[in-house]
């Protein structure tokens, strides 16, 4: 079939879009397979299922078709083994750019290959020869995605419920790819005020069946919320009561519940950061000494943990200079962290892998994993500034510089590397500019190491800092990027244990000296990041008992588990989670020992947590759609 014929058919198929009432009849499928026999057979089978079929033998053609009209197809079926492009690569790209459900097809049914497909984001994995019975039910993936997206778009509600759905939908995938995409979308929806939700609404506009108006947490609303919480007492504040006290229409208990979650995280971050800041007295001075330290630490953390860990240790000295200027970026990262502790990779495999990776054992893998977040970031932040900031971060810090990273050697990384380098902003520009911060946090922290460390800190487990940071940031970032392998249960359990050990932090108002997200972009990003992390948190931890009861989440595996790390399962001796999902701290410690050798991990962790607080604040603030007014200032009331 020539491209023209394909297009014609697709156009006709698109015309059938109005027949969505008859769904799944008329569902538009794009089939990609280099084997003409299989392709023809597949086409016929799909036609027998009454789908609209478009076929192409080349992945490049498929991408072209998909890009030309994103809403022209409902589902993509792709062979794994193709000459011009790896099926997994196509899978990733489709997931990233179009967020369509993709089904893999292969004659190879080995577990490892199937796992790879799932972790790359496939909705399903079929074996050749394909039977018509299997194809009759593939529409479920489309429905599932639509309903998840609709729910995500409409509600600022329980992320956990969404995640559950996502998880259940993708249960057979091991919570990998689909989770990644959906959770990414979820995060976008949760995090953004208007833009992303609009985007998502547009994307789902035609196909969504359910939509609720997004709840925007304005300054007023949040003030009421905080007042209610304070009135009830932070420990006794339950969504129902808060809702009653607030006495506002058009918000549901679920809205309040999720907002409460974020708020609690923020509080925790603040308290931990406050204690940490007390410890950080020395160092760099500069504008914000405490924060400088934190930034420095955060940065070091990154070094230590991996994503952009400099190749040998040549760059250790360099980051110091950069770190000194990392105030705002660090904060950005910090901001990202708060919600992250709970965003733990939902799969054990991911956890062990990530641990291994974090430990720097598999630097390449880390890079790759980090790589994925970049993809997400690029997807989520198409705006110039975002990209710039990120690029700045990467460019400015040798640590982050792609040049130093084996990323380049990774196939998928190439695309992102380009994106990384897209902006040429000087690293110095980060100073005092929170906008870039989120990027850094977002992208870098995908490695979660920083995050986890900060999280650990927040939980007040100094002795576990080493352990904590690794897990949490990784998980959180995975969430954010939806592509980073999450640490999974290990991290979760660790976070959980840490959390449970931690006490509910007294809410301390913390002045945020650094300019926060002066640009809307940064705020957006922060918001996104936070949203992402929040969403991840909400859903990812079934076993976590943070603060004893604050966050009871279901690990639904919705956390993106896109395994960008090959052999992640065997990743550098990752700590295998214990049976009950709690990680073996000793094992984790051993993994994390290398951190101690590297930069001041603990400091970094502290720094990170401080930053997270800022991020959380910003997150809350961003919801207000205000411009340039640091939310913390005077908005938070002490309990």
């Amino acid at each position, binding site marked *: 079939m020539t491209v023209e014929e394909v297009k014609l058919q697709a156009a006709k198929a698109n015309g059938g879009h109005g027949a969505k009432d008859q769904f799944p009849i008329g569902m538009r499928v794009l089939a990609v397979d280099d084997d003409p*026999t299989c392709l023809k057979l597949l086409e016929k089978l799909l036609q027998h299922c009454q789908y609209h079929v478009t076929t192409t033998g080349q992945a490049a053609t498929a991408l072209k078709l998909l890009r030309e009209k994103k809403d022209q197809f409902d589902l993509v079926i792709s062979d794994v083994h193709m000459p011009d492009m790896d099926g997994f690569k196509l899978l990733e790209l489709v997931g990233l750019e179009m967020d369509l459900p993709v089904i893999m097809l292969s004659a190879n049914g080995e577990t490892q290959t199937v796992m790879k497909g799932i972790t790359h984001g496939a909705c399903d994995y079929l074996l050749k*020869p394909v*039977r018509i019975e299997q194809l009759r039910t593939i529409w479920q993936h489309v429905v599932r995605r639509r309903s998840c997206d609709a729910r995500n778009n409409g509600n600022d509600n329980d992320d956990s419920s969404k995640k559950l759905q996502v998880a259940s939908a993708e249960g057979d995938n091991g919570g990998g790819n689909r989770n990644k995409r959906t959770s990414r979308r979820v995060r976008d929806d949760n995090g953004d005020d208007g833009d992303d939700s609009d985007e998502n609404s547009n994307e789902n506009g035609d196909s969504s069946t359910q939509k609720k108006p997004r709840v925007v947490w304005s300054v007023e609303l949040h003030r009421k919320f905080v007042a209610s919480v304070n009135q009830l007492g932070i420990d006794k504040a339950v969504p129902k009561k808060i809702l009653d006290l607030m006495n506002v229409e058009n918000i549901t208990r679920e809205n309040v519940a999720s907002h409460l979650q974020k708020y609690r995280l923020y509080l925790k971050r603040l308290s931990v950061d406050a204690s940490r800041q007390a410890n950080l007295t020395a160092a760099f001075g500069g504008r914000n000494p405490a924060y400088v330290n934190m930034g420095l630490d955060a940065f070091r953390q990154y070094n230590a943990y991996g994503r952009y860990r400099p190749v040998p240790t040549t760059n250790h000295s360099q980051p110091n200079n950069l770190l000194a200027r990392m105030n705002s970026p660090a904060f950005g990262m910090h901001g990202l962290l708060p919600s992250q502790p709970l965003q733990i990779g939902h799969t054990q495999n991911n956890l062990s892998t990530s641990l291994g990776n974090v430990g720097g054992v598999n630097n390449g893998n880390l890079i790759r994993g980090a790589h994925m977040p970049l993809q997400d970031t690029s997807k989520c932040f198409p705006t110039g500034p975002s990209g710039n900031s990120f690029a700045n971060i990467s460019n400015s810090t040798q640590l982050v510089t792609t040049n130093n990273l084996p990323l380049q050697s990774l196939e998928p990384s190439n695309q992102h590397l380009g994106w990384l380098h897209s902006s040429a902003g000087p690293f110095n520009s980060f100073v005092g500019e929170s906008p870039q911060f989120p990027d850094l946090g977002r992208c870098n922290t995908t490695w979660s190491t920083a995050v986890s460390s900060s999280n650990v800190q927040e939980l007040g487990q100094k002795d576990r800092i080493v352990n904590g940071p690794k897990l949490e940031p990784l998980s959180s970032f995975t969430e954010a990027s939806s592509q980073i392998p999450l640490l999974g249960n290990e991290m979760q359990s660790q976070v959980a244990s840490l959390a449970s050990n931690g006490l509910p932090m007294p809410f301390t108002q913390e002045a945020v000296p650094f300019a926060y997200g002066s640009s809307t972009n940064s705020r957006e990003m922060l918001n996104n990041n936070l949203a992402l992390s929040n969403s991840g948190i909400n859903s990812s931890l079934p076993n976590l008992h943070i603060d004893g009861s604050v966050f009871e989440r279901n690990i639904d595996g919705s956390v993106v588990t896109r395994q960008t790390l090959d052999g992640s399962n065997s990743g550098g001796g990752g700590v295998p989670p214990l049976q009950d999902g709690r990680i073996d701290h000793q094992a984790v410690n051993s993994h994390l020992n290398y951190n101690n050798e590297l930069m001041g991990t603990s400091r970094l962790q502290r720094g990170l947590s401080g930053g997270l607080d800022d991020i959380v604040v910003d997150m809350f603030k961003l919801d207000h759609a205000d411009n340039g007014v640091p939310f913390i200032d005077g908005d938070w009331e002490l309990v």
Partner: protein
Amino acid sequence: MDYTNLRRQIISMKKSLFDQGYLDEQFNQLEELQDDSSPNFVDEVVALFFKDSSRLLTNIEQALEKYPQDFYRLDSLVYQFKGSGSSIGALRMKNECSMFKAHCNDRNLEGYRTLDDSSSIPASHSLLEQLHLIPWLTQMPPVTPEDEEGACHSEAEAGDIFSCKHKHQIKGPVST
């Protein structure tokens, strides 16, 4: 008109293909897909298969000659072959391919006669060319110019049809 004989022969040929394990139920699926909207579906698919597979076979042979130790390449080629074969229900060929791949994995093709004349992959592939006859079962017109062809082939072996000059719709490649 002797097409009943021809039909009978084709049916028995098909049966023997199934019995001997050259075909499996996937082929039945192919047949089921054939309907009024695509009356030649089976034939088209089989033709496509042979066209593609001959190319693959050539590649495999070349690979064996030029890169005898390049198991990865061989494995990859045979994998494609396997995929094609399994799609049309070529069971035996699929199995042969699997065995071949196993040997590739073991880095050992010594004990396995791969693509020489008596080897199994091309052999099973050749036999599959008989598949081209099967669509005729549904396409036999009641009255036709095939009368002449039918007479021509009524006693013919299946393989002879390929050399027949009558215009059949057989599009398979010459057996390798």
